[in-house]
């Protein structure tokens, strides 16, 4: 470790209206290291990084790069100074090719020489161990691939300080490990890497320094060597977490809520995403679907929801055939969807909380009285949906877009519990949530399954999250759902092997 930090932020304060997001926070990052910033939702991590990246300016405090004070008034100034950031919401433009997306904003000249550009792109990606079809439309990139492309964009801009906001949220364990290997290589070559994360294991396994924020204040900063998981959690949460509820054994005789028999479903681009999938979900269970991104999880969810046609095989949901069973009716009978892409599929940002609550419920008899919306019930239910996971909001007329990503997710999760759900399809329900909120979500899933005889199908790229919280885990691999042997339903190494090879 060199003695002087590459990045030093001193006494940073920032308020938004009456909310103090940061209160005299210090932060340092060194060349050649990966340093972590951890904290709960709303602890101020993103605000701090946005200040470093020049997106917002601090009310107080100074930023020093290589000991020189800097004042970035825009992110382009920060980029010019070698600072790069990948945010939680990827900036990939569909319709452009991968290569065009890569060079976007830092085109090397007036004319683009495609061959040369592609050579350099190949160099960068092979160095990182990534593979891209550079001339393909970026629209088709999975979130994991989009994340990789975002990292390459930083390299393309010669960023020396890289800020990564939850880079592994959508990656499989193997991809995540590969990413950290590459990040370590980058650090060894002299980059300064700042990792914003919720995953304690990443901090302890891969980072040299950690800064803990809580409620806009710095709680701890120091080396990770010698730290334990529990001490880190204590700093982040300010209390120790309660024990998880124990898991129950599943009763084979309980009612079948969902039955898939050899279903075949196509992807948008026409090839099969699912090719002969058999799967049963019974009431009262929380089932995890693990798997690397792009193994048909999205298509599976859409097929179950009635949003994507089933080419062959049969689907039975709530005891009724999936044929001529529109999504609206399934929702009415208790299906709930927590969509993968929150901003694109789950919410309408410019709408207020009450209106957003109504998405998915507009045909419910409780809310639809002869074609008119029952506002009283809507208000009441929207409020309970928000309170379910303590969404931080001022009032129901506030636009949902004005809430932080984590709070939006809390609201979306809360909405799935409204009006007697029977089968919840949850795609990455913990995305952007800190582990306290994550634990809460799964606890509620379990309670729902146990008390209301409902079931929950969770799709996640985070195997550990599923192992900790589900009754059983199946693996999506190569157009199939692979059911592990009974004794391996919660066996990490067996499932990990299935995820990458499909072999039991």
């Amino acid at each position: 470790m060199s003695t002087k930090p590459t990045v030093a932020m001193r006494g940073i304060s920032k308020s938004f209206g009456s909310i103090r997001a940061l209160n005299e926070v210090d932060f340092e990052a060194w060349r050649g290291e990966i340093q972590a910033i951890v904290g709960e939702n709303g602890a101020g991590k993103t605000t701090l990084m946005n200040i470093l990246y020049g997106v917002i300016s601090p009310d107080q405090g100074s930023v020093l790069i290589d000991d020189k004070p800097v004042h970035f008034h825009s992110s382009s100034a920060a980029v010019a100074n070698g600072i790069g950031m990948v945010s939680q919401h990827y900036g990939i433009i569909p319709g452009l090719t991968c290569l065009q997306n890569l060079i976007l904003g830092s085109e090397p000249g007036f004319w683009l020489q495609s061959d040369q550009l592609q050579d350099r792109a190949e160099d960068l990606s092979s160095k990182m161990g990534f593979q891209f079809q550079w001339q393909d439309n970026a629209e088709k990139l999975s979130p994991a691939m989009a994340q990789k492309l975002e990292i390459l964009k930083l390299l393309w801009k010669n960023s020396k300080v890289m800020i990564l906001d939850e880079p592994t949220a959508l990656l499989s364990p193997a991809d995540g490990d590969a990413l950290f290997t590459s990040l370590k290589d980058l650090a060894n070559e002299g980059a300064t890497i700042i990792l914003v994360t919720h995953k304690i294991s990443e901090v302890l396994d891969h980072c040299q320094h950690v800064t803990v924020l809580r409620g806009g204040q710095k709680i701890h900063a120091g080396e990770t060597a010698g730290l334990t998981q529990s001490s880190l959690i204590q700093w982040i949460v300010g209390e120790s977490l309660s024990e998880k509820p124990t898991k129950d054994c599943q009763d084979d005789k309980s009612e079948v809520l969902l039955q898939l028999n050899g279903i075949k479903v196509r992807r948008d681009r026409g090839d099969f995403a699912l090719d002969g999938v058999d799967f049963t979900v019974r009431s009262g269970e929380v089932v995890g679907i693990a798997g690397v991104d792009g193994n048909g999880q999205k298509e599976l969810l859409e097929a179950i929801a009635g949003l994507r046609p089933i080419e062959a095989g049969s689907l039975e949901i709530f005891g009724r055939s999936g044929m001529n069973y529109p999504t609206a009716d399934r929702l009415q009978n208790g299906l709930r969807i927590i969509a993968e892409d929150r901003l694109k599929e789950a919410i309408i940002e410019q709408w207020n909380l009450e209106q957003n609550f109504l998405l998915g419920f507009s045909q419910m008899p409780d809310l639809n009285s002869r074609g008119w919306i029952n506002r009283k019930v809507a208000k009441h239910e929207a409020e309970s949906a928000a309170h379910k996971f303590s969404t931080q909001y001022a009032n129901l007329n506030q636009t949902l877009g004005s809430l932080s990503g984590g709070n939006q997710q809390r609201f979306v999760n809360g909405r799935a519990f409204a009006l007697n759900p029977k089968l919840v399809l949850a795609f990455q329900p913990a995305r952007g949530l800190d582990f306290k909120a994550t634990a809460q979500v799964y606890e509620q899933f379990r309670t729902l399954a146990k008390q209301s005889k409902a079931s929950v199908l969770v799709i996640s790229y985070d195997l550990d999250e599923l192992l900790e919280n589900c009754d059983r885990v199946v693996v999506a691999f190569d157009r199939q759902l692979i059911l592990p042997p009974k004794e391996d339903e919660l066996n990490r190494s067996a499932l990990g092997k299935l995820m990458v090879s499909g072999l039991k």
Partner: protein
Amino acid sequence: MKRIPAIVLLAVVCLLLLYGFLAFTQLSVASAMSDLIHGSLGGSSQISQTFQHATPLLVAAVAVFVALRAGLFNIGVEGQFVIGALATGFIGTKLSGGLGMTVAIFGGAAMGALWSFPAGWIKAYKGGHEVITTIMLNSVAGYIAVGLASGPIKQAGQESPQTAKILATMPSIPMGGLSISWATLIAFFLPLLAGFWFSRSVKGFETDATGANIHAARQAGINTKRVIVRTMVVSGAIAGLAGALQVVAYSHRFYPDISSGTGFDALGVALLAGSYSWVLIPAAFAFGMLYQASPLLQIDGLPKGIVDILLAIMIIVGAAIRFRRLKALG
């Protein structure tokens, strides 16, 4: 929310521009303003005329507004207006009495709906953009109007292409010297009805959701294809109604250039109103005032083009304000 100050700013900018333009003419700002007021509101005849301009425009603007809520840009209001007027004009020459007039009006609305249906259907099921299809349908409507009015449905013994006078016309509301048609009352009622429908009805909610985020709407179980077709048809019906009211209340017969661009001006009115339906009323009335006053302004040396330029600037700035918000959503 944020839109009201933006509209105020827009008004101020337009006034400043008006000052600028006026510097090139013999007119002083004060006399231009007084011309505008006198020309449009200076007497019962002027007021009546202003309402006459504003009424079909307001109805057509509601048609644009409804489509915009579903994210559809109905450029075809012009064509739907013409087809609606054509149907009403034709039926009106055959049927008499209050019932006949009602049938003629509904016939106009139905034909407007029919005329917009292909655009909605192609958009929903074939992915063809509604701007392209409605522009094409506008041209077709124009040719049909000329073709029929100069031949099959032409008034016997007439030189110009027009139908005979309709048998039953819409009366005026008895109001002293003013001559304001019952059509105006219908027109003023429509935006309020639309606003209420969007904020309270389930179908209105689903239309809004489809316009705001079609992916989220689909996930919420909304049949977005059906919403698109339905909204386009409703928009076309309202546009047809605008044409029908023009015939029964004012023109009393059909001729091919009956709309004189009402359907396009309605785009401007709707863009100015943004997401507030009630703003359609003052916006359409302001357009009506400018039209009504423009002959007087011309006589006093303000070229007609300047009024149009002013309207254009208002529309562009209004649209910019509106789409600035949409842009952020991607």
